[in-house]
């Protein structure tokens, strides 16, 4: 199993697991799991996830996860 850190932003924070105190939390995934699987595990509608970054690199949802990864999920932010 691989331990990763997940951080949810803005409107996605409501999908944090019940065990998490805030929008940044640790999770355990199976090695080779993709970001897409993680999105489903967290119960987030895929269309609500606009940007994903793993270790600060913007990735697609087929990105495979590894031990120690930091995964950020962002919704559409119409700012700026």
């Amino acid at each position: 199993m691989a331990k990763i850190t997940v951080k949810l932003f803005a409107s996605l924070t409501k999908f944090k697991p019940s065990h998490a105190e805030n929008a940044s939390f640790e999770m355990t995934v199976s090695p080779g799991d993709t970001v897409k699987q993680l999105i489903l595990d967290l119960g987030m509608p895929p269309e609500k996830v606009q940007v994903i970054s793993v270790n600060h690199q913007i990735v697609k949802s087929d990105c495979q996860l590894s031990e120690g990864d930091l995964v950020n999920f962002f919704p559409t932010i119409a700012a700026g």
Partner: protein
Amino acid sequence: MGNGYWQIVLRVNLTTGEISKEKVAESIWKKYLGGSGYGAKVLYDEVGPDVAPYDAENRLIFAAGPLQAAKQTGAAKFTVISKSPVTGIFGESAAGGTWGASFKAAGYDALIVQGKAAKPVYLQINDDDVEICDASKYWGSDAYDAADGILGDCGLEKASICTIGQAGENKVAIACIVVDKHSFAGRCGLGAVMGAKNLKAVVARGSKATPVYDAEKLKGLNKDINKSIHDNTKDWLRLHGTPFVEIGCDQAGDTPTKNWQLGGWPEGAEKLGVPAYTDTLEAKPHACSSCVVGCHRDITVAEPQEYAMKGPGPEYESLGMLGNNCLMDDVKALSKMNDLCNRYGVDSISMGSFLGFTMDLLEKGIIKPEDIGGVDLKWGDKENMIRLIHELGMKKPGFGELFADGIVPAAKKFGPEAEELAPHVKGLDLPAHDPRAFFALAVNYATGSVGPHHERGNPQVASGGFLLPEAGVSEEVDRFKMEDSEYVAAKYQDYGTLTQAICHCKFMFFGGYSLTNMLETMNALTGWDWSMEEMLRTAERIFTLQRMVNVKYGIDRKDDKLPAAMFKASEDGGRAGKAPHDFEEALDRYYDLRGWDNTGIPTHATVSSLGIE
């Protein structure tokens, strides 16, 4: 014990050379706060409907707020206010850099410039010493060169400077004010008002700490707020700046595309947004004073030679307007265009609007290349876009003269078809967020104090979970819902009004800065012991005063409208089949909420209850 204000306003008459320092009572600051609130008060009291924007009698107000006493993240802002040459009504724009903090530290809350100098001058404010200095040798310089030259002449350490480029000198209506070669008071043509006054620059240097009510409390608040905002923005706003939102906004149908005709342009957005932007331009964060976010970009384009530049990179708004709106997907060429806009000192939002509008008119055969000096401007035609930016910056015959007074006078020259395609409200070009993607923007753009603005009310972010629970917006907003859109618009306008008046950066909101944070900060600064209700009431007062300024200049319901295109749904993209509807009913509800009559004029009862004098 202080209250975050010096209660001193500096007034400079450029016609007579008179410089005075006026005491302004705490009661005025408590009602109008500073920034665009105080500026509205000055316009209402001192600039009548008969004063034209370029008249010597127009006022140009540079106003700080109480936040410049706080040294809190986001407190780099100041606001410039005047009767706008773009719209002829209330105009204001905010900028960052270090000018606001330097000016406040010189011992003033605001600067009022009036009159017109007989020759080009700059103003030097060095604590108590204020001088009007000759700027003749810098007239004709771009905004960056002028900043370097004048600061060199001053010889003041840690001074900050506002400059204009050639566009301001030439009274190009969309001219902006350039701050420290890095931040921009971009909208409403305030650089052209500087130019009309023969004012090339304002230098500020200060060495004083503004006394505050509870310094220890403030220190604790700052520590918590700064940490929280840094944690919440370091992975996106700091890492990528506002270009981070480009692809998402395009997918939502939010970014104007092909002069607002298309619902999206994913292949273009991919090339302009991140990570392409960050990688291609070697983008690094650049922070304003006190800021822990650093959303601005420092970029480098080494090649090709024709686009080579180094300095501030385009923000999302510039990407949207010069990129998507013109179907131009070369991020290096766009960076060059943005750099030219910065140096000439023109608003890149309006510049992109003019270019997209012109491409549209040419494609539809409404105008011919000879109408703009023989340039056959096509969609995405980067070489001619660059050429036309030069021409507008220098107000050259053809395109430059045609758009020198803004999009409305230009469109009028080509008749009703052109007028219908011009994307503006009250003469100000729409910024790069589309009301068809976020319906609350419809009422917001129609009723905004300066015209359409994406930050003087940014209700579009309520759909992304950036909420105002203390003001009654506690749940994510359905972006395609007209019902209650007026309420959401009003509450985000009020939030924007507060940030503009206290002079705080609205982007702190994206790091979690709440109205509660603002209230606690204000009470620590001032000792006013405000309730949330009192603070929100102050926002309503200021917004209503700004409306009264506009009413005085002839604005009412007939002007609170949107371009026809905003009611036409697209067939594709993230907002396919969607457009604001029942707009007049939403406007009725908005007026009721504001306490304005059905012609859009604040009632006597409203004015009286808000304590506006």
